[in-house]
């Protein structure tokens, strides 16, 4: 199956996405902010569809909206988090805008399906390079931020006494999460970002209580699930997103039962 370029691309894309989703997802789970990833996926749909309409690569529209959305969510803090209705309405409006943009394009349902559920077997070389660049950027930013971010995650009040600026750290981290969401969407689509961003990290933290082993395990699980899912999609002709999500759910269930 490695004779095909699209399979080599799909497996490479899976590994790139896993490298970002493991560490970012570990902090999302630690901070109990997993639904931020879900929300950013919905926002990203509008951005990607808008970019298609404007004739720009959808990845750029996705990145612009998820990063800005993440930074805004972090900066607003609890004022936003406590308002379920407002959050729900913003997400609905974002999805609806995406639907409008796609209908204005009049190119059928294919781009919509690709955005909603991913199209890892269709990743071309330029997209792969863009994904690698974004991965390097998000990992670099996360590495710089991770010290104060970890302290703020486990002891916000104590961190604030030590001089950590909680708002700024939260905004920075959710902007990085926006980058990770944009990456994950390339593989599993906006509706299934949980699968790679949250599933492996949540399973890993049930298997080990040590920080670095949990981050490494989350990354390995995400990579294993994504690559195995792509291979199973090749063998069965079922969607890769289905296999990846099924493997992610199975791993999480196994970790729960352990």
């Amino acid at each position, binding site marked *: 199956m490695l004779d095909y370029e699209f399979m080599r691309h799909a497996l490479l894309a899976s590994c790139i996405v896993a490298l970002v989703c493991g560490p970012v997802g570990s902090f999302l789970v630690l901070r109990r902010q997993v639904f931020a990833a879900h929300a950013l996926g919905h926002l990203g749909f509008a951005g990607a569809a808008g970019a298609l309409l404007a004739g720009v690569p959808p990845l750029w529209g996705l990145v612009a909206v998820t990063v800005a959305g993440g930074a805004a969510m972090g900066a607003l803090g609890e004022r936003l988090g406590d308002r379920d209705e407002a959050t729900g309405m913003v997400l609905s409006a974002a999805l609806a805008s995406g639907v409008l943009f796609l209908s204005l394009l009049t190119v059928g349902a294919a781009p919509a399906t690709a955005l909603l559920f991913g199209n890892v077997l269709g990743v071309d070389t330029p997209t792969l390079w863009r994904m690698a660049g974004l991965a390097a950027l998000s990992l670099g930013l996360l*590495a710089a931020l991770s*010290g104060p971010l970890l*302290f703020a995650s*486990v002891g916000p*009040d*104590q961190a604030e006494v030590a001089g950590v600026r909680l708002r700024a750290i939260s905004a920075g981290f959710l902007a990085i999460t926006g980058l990770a969401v944009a990456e994950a969407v390339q593989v599993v689509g906006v509706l299934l970002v949980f699968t790679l961003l949250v599933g492996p990290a949540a399973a890993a933290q049930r298997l080990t*209580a040590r*920080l670095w082993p*949990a981050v490494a395990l989350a990354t390995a699980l995400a990579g294993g699930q994504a690559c195995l899912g792509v291979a199973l999609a090749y063998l069965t002709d079922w969607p890769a997103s289905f296999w990846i999500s099924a493997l992610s759910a199975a791993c999480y269930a196994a970790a729960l039962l352990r």
Partner: protein
Amino acid sequence: MSVGEISGALRFSGVSLRLGGRQVLTGLDIAVPEGAFVGVLGPNGAGKTTLMRAALGLIQPSSGRIDRRGTAGYLPQTGGHLEDLRLCGRDFVAAGARRAAWGLPIPDRAARLDVERVLALTDSAGTAHRPMSALSGGERQRLALAQALLGTPRLLVLDEPLAGLDPQHQVATVALVRRLQQTLGLTVLFSAHDLNTLLPVLDQVLYLGGGRAEMGSVAQVVTGPVLSRLYGAPMEVIPAGGRLFVVASERADHAGL
């Protein structure tokens, strides 16, 4: 937070504190002596947490100034989020070892030694390998206390650490804090709902009520006249069995108040 020419560990000079547009405390003049164990007492909503957060620099006074010597360790009131934390105690404590420094949270050798030191000080070395979510409330609290002791704080601020503990663990917590205060030479601000658990160890009492504060020894502050002033209603202090009971005065009713 400026560090002025002060002889004590902490000084409030003409401080007023506002929270969410509401004036919580007015005209505070407090000097906390170095190395004192201070009980912060008062009714619900009197401003105990606000005063402690101001001492830590988390709230800026609307007027007056606060001077503090050295760094402070903080044990906040709500440790609720720790119940769900699937991180082991040692990594939880180590998360604070680099303070606010940028970069990967990998403690250097000195920081690792400091983590082991505070784990030993709080009798937490035996539980530090287990996830926080698998520990008892008292074990989690000792680890949070360990994190607050990282570095060399001069002041330790503990917000209602006895809330939610059974009487036996309350006594153990007070004894542990007393031991830390004496061996490390710390100044301690310890807020509590009930005075009596703290009675054996208190050097000073900081009693809040009616937007004001009184500070002094137990004998000076926990008296009918002082508390009546703070509560804005006649109060009485009844000693019984080595304990003090603060109650609304009934005799005042008969006096026609």
